[in-house]
């Protein structure tokens, strides 16, 4: 998590956006020190509700930049992501994938949770960039915590995107698990050996499979009207002067 928040900090700086206008709803607990360092507003929501909570923040005050950080492979609240993408809600979703449930590279993942998968993980993981792209996300990318510079750049880009952007970050599980497995020092090496950067790769081809290397990079970067754009356009068309556009220049 530390490398993700550090990259987020760098990304915010690069984006030139005032950190005070950034809200981070997350179901992952951050330490107060990290939040203070980032200078953002932080909300630890119930599990899986960060994107929906962020939707409310954005609609309540369209001037905010909202960065929901979700964990657990979006098992809880995955539907908020699907529909956030469909309506193109202006949030930058960070999906932290620590393979708690999943297998990788055809063998028990070094950083999988031994407590939940004592006989090694066997379920297939999601292809998140493909899922995001199909749901309508305007920006998808995947990085590991080894790619701190690239991740920071993605944050900077995504924060300026109009619509739902999604950055999947492959990260080691909580220290607790890495300690159990005794592989903390091996994780970055694992990422180094098992990942390959392929920007603009078709998201359909970036599934994490046991046989192939993990493809990282920026996969989607497109434009679509956001929820607020569509909301304003539709109501202006029907209601004319009776409607005051929400957010944007008139906010």
């Amino acid at each position: 998590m530390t490398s993700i928040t550090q990259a987020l900090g760098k990304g915010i700086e690069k984006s030139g956006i005032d950190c005070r206008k950034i809200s981070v709803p997350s179901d992952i607990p951050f330490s107060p020190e990290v939040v203070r360092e980032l200078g953002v507003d932080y909300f630890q929501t119930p599990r899986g509700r960060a994107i929906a909570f962020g939707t409310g923040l954005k609609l309540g005050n369209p001037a905010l930049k909202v960065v929901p950080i979700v964990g657990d492979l979006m098992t809880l609240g995955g539907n908020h992501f699907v529909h956030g993408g469909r309506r193109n809600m202006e949030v930058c979703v960070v999906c932290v994938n620590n393979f708690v449930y999943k297998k990788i590279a055809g063998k028990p993942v070094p950083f999988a949770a031994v407590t939940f998968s004592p006989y090694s993980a066997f379920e297939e993981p999601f292809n998140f960039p493909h899922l995001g792209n199909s749901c309508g996300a305007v920006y998808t990318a995947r990085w590991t915590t080894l790619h701190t510079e690239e991740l920071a750049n993605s944050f900077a880009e995504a924060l300026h995107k109009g619509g739902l952007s999604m950055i999947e970050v492959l990260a080691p599980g909580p220290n607790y698990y890495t300690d159990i497995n005794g592989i903390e020092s091996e994780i970055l090496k694992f990422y180094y050996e098992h990942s390959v950067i392929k920007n603009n790769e078709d998201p359909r081809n970036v599934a994490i499979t046991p046989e192939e290397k993990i493809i990282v990079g920026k996969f989607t970067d497109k434009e679509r009207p956001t929820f607020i754009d569509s909301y304003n356009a539709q109501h202006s068309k029907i209601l004319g002067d009776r409607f005051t556009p929400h957010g944007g220049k008139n906010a």
Partner: protein
Amino acid sequence: MKANPKDVLTGVYYIDGDVASGYGALAAGCKLVAGYPITPSTEAFEAMCRRGPQVGAVFIQMEDELGSMAAVLGAAWSGVKSMTITSGPGYSLMQENIGFAAMVETPFVLLNIQRGGPSTGVPTKTGQADMMQSRWGSHGDYELIALSPDSPQEMFDYTIKAFNLAEKYRCPVMIMSDECVGHMTEKVVIPEAEKIELEPRRLFTGQPDEYIPFKPDPDLVPKMAKAGDGFNLYITGLVHDERGHPIKNEEFKLKYIRRLVDKIRLNKEKIIELKEEGTDGADVVVVSYGISSRVAVKGVELARKKGIKVGTLRLVTVWPFPDERITKLAKKAKAFVVPEINYGQIVFEVARCSHGQANVVLVPHGGAGVHNPDDIADAIEYAVREEKKIEGVVEYKTRLEKLVFEGGYTLKE
């Protein structure tokens, strides 16, 4: 603070309770409604979707009720008044975030147009069986406020009051209405904006570095800040100290949760609103709320014709419960009669507060309809004739129960 004239549809209308509540919310300055439409509450959502965009209120149909509730809380922290509208099954899904809201002291209003339950139940017909859920639905210790209007006019008035209470006490406020009141069409008078008093948000006005998010004011309610104003907020559903930082310490937990509970309990007298009629010198007091109190009026009238001294106590505020008032009445009256559209919820609260000093008679109803006033009248008559003290709650067998079950089930070995 007065209502904004733009938000208020001043005039005389013939509308149903759902629509009246929607208009009330907009008059109260609600600027975001997130929901997942569900019968029988849809008309309220529809009214807000139609009127909202004209007064700068945003509506969003979310993917589910979990998301709706989360969006409502997000909006509240962005600085606007927000609400959601639902019924039984949706209400169950919302419980998770209601607890979160109570924990981080987020003001919002939830309109629950109760329908027959459990589960999918009877979507188009009435029920009053979510009353205990509204009090204990989310896990952990917390207190909230629940109101129960009994007419479209009250739906308008008490929706505004609900927003005021939510802002004043920074807690979830439930409007526990029911299908009958929600779909009841009556005259509703919407006053001029200047006659509508609104409670502003308790915003912290000092410098961000002086702000302690959960430091209570003398009335135990802390000041709030908005996201995006540079307060570097740290808000978590974990037990936290005054700074909002997570703590696990036993003493701190006690201190924090105690205040969450006490900010409502100690302010009870200011929160609770009751409507009483003829309770002085009454032998029987009918305790009711929502649609049941409308039906009880007829039942009481019938009983009075028989010469029985009956008073009525209407719980406009159901939670926090008016313990003291019930205890006081129990010392004078012979019995309480509680008609409610469930198999006993609020009646047990009445029994708890009467401390065995008065008999407590439940007039149950399985839902999908309202009581027959004759049953309420008969229950009053039974209650006044019963000389001996009865422990616990007596369940009065209504005509419908007798007809359907021939007096009820008996278990055999």
